[in-house]
């Protein structure tokens, strides 16, 4: 009879955490920033169809780094949770805090259950408020903890370095073009201190725009509109207003 070998709980958890972290680190990082009119999501994503950012509900969006099939599963679970809750009670009763709690419980249970492989994902759940003070951003690492963030967040492989960079430069009340420029600068930094160019067609950008007249505030930014915003980056607010006007006109073909 073979003796089952003993692994201390500390060691088992450390191994699982390392496994999850390594999986997450294989993917590209993404950043989430507050700007004057909402929250912007920026990431490097060569795919046009497999999104890292998605709408969950009216004012709530989801961003994820790590293993696609795992976070996609969580995303759909979140959409079902939000839609069912809104249908049962009211649209106002669906909140990012509630959703983040459900995700945290789900990730936490999976992480500590010996029967399941830990999820190799790191999530951000964000809700845009009526004012910048009302914005909520929650970061959810693989182990089910919740971190309430303000200003800027980075998740994924190179997250620590990127968020350090963002923390030093992010300011309240930035314009969308400024925030986008800062996000791209941060994502372009290599772990070894170098820098590389990320072409516009490899960027996935989405916003929760509180000025949007529709009930649903989530909007993707791509194509000409993205190119204009990237050009406008910096303090040229006039060009940004123009891009905004175009955004409204292009709203129809968002999805």
């Amino acid at each position: 009879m073979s003796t089952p070998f003993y692994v201390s709980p500390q060691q088992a958890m450390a191994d699982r955490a390392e496994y999850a972290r390594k999986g997450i680190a294989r993917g590209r990082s993404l950043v989430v920033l507050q700007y004057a009119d909402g929250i912007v999501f920026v990431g490097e994503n060569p795919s046009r169809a497999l999104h890292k950012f998605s709408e969950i509900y009216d004012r709530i969006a989801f961003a994820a780094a790590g293993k696609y099939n795992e976070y996609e599963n969580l995303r759909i679970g979140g959409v079902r949770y939000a839609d069912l809750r809104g249908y049962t009670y009211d649209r106002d009763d669906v909140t990012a805090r509630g959703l983040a709690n459900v995700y945290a419980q789900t990730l936490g249970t999976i992480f500590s259950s010996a029967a399941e492989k830990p999820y190799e994902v790191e999530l951000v759940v964000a809700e845009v408020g009526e004012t910048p003070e009302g914005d909520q951003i929650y970061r959810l690492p693989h182990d089910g903890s919740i971190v309430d963030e303000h200003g800027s967040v980075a998740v994924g492989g190179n997250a620590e370095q990127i968020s350090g960079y963002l923390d030093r430069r992010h300011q309240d009340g930035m314009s969308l073009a400024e925030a986008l420029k800062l996000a791209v600068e941060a994502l372009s930094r290599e772990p070894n201190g170098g820098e590389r160019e990320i072409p516009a067609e490899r960027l996935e950008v989405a916003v929760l725009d509180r000025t949007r007249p529709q009930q649903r505030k989530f909007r993707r930014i791509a194509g000409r509109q993205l190119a204009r915003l990237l050009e406008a980056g910096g303090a040229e607010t006039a060009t940004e207003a123009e891009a905004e006007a175009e955004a409204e006109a292009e709203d129809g073909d968002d999805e």
Partner: protein
Amino acid sequence: MEANTRSTGRLPAAFLTPGSSSFMDFLSEHQPEMLPGKRQLPPVQGVIEAPHGTTIVAATFPGGVVLAGDRRATMGNVIAQRDIEKVFPADEYSAVGIAGTAGLAVEMVKLFQLELEHFEKVEGAQLSLEGKANRLSTMIRSNLGMALQGLAVVPLFAGYDVDREKGRIFSYDVTGGRSEEHGFAATGSGSIFARGALKKLYSPDLTEQQATTLVVQALYDAADDDSATGGPDVARRIYPIVTVITEEGFRKLTDEESSEIARSILERRLEQPDGPRAALL
């Protein structure tokens, strides 16, 4: 299972199980009692009295479609509500107007809106207009049991078909039977009168503004002859709900806009009570 959506516990397995992109399918597996069609109705004698919505009209014009409804809900010979809304956006490119039992119809619209939104979020793409119209058909069919007990819901669905680049109208019967209408359509108790007006005034080359006037004329004629349909209520400033769907998406006319149309029609009717005349030949 229901407790799981209320507490902040872990997502139940059903939420994380890969499945269809339909919210109704998800509900019918996870919480079937939440679906209106799954509700059991005890046997009742006679007809159940509940507020009824009455007249909905729609007309297409080059580049879009308009959908409008009066504001009256009746219960027998009593006016149950004077400012009910019976026309709702279904999503960015479509709208639904409801005649029949108001309570059930409003619930059905809410579920229909959610069904379209859910699909869009899960799939990252919109359903085709045909797909949306079929989905509504399924929902009406699931209400057949109640319809046979007098609680019928008869919607009118209109939308802008992005692929064909034109406005389209679908009408339904209580069994969920669906038919596409060409040019114009009306449903509800005042619809026979409204349809007469539409038939005489409609032409395929209307402008958007003419189309919105047309549907209000038709609602006026319906209210003129059907006691369950409400005309423009000038004293209370309650005017018909008029919506326009074009390439730009769904738009509901503001109170000012619809009151202006209604008032100009009223003014003309003071001189000519039966409304605009068509040439005999």
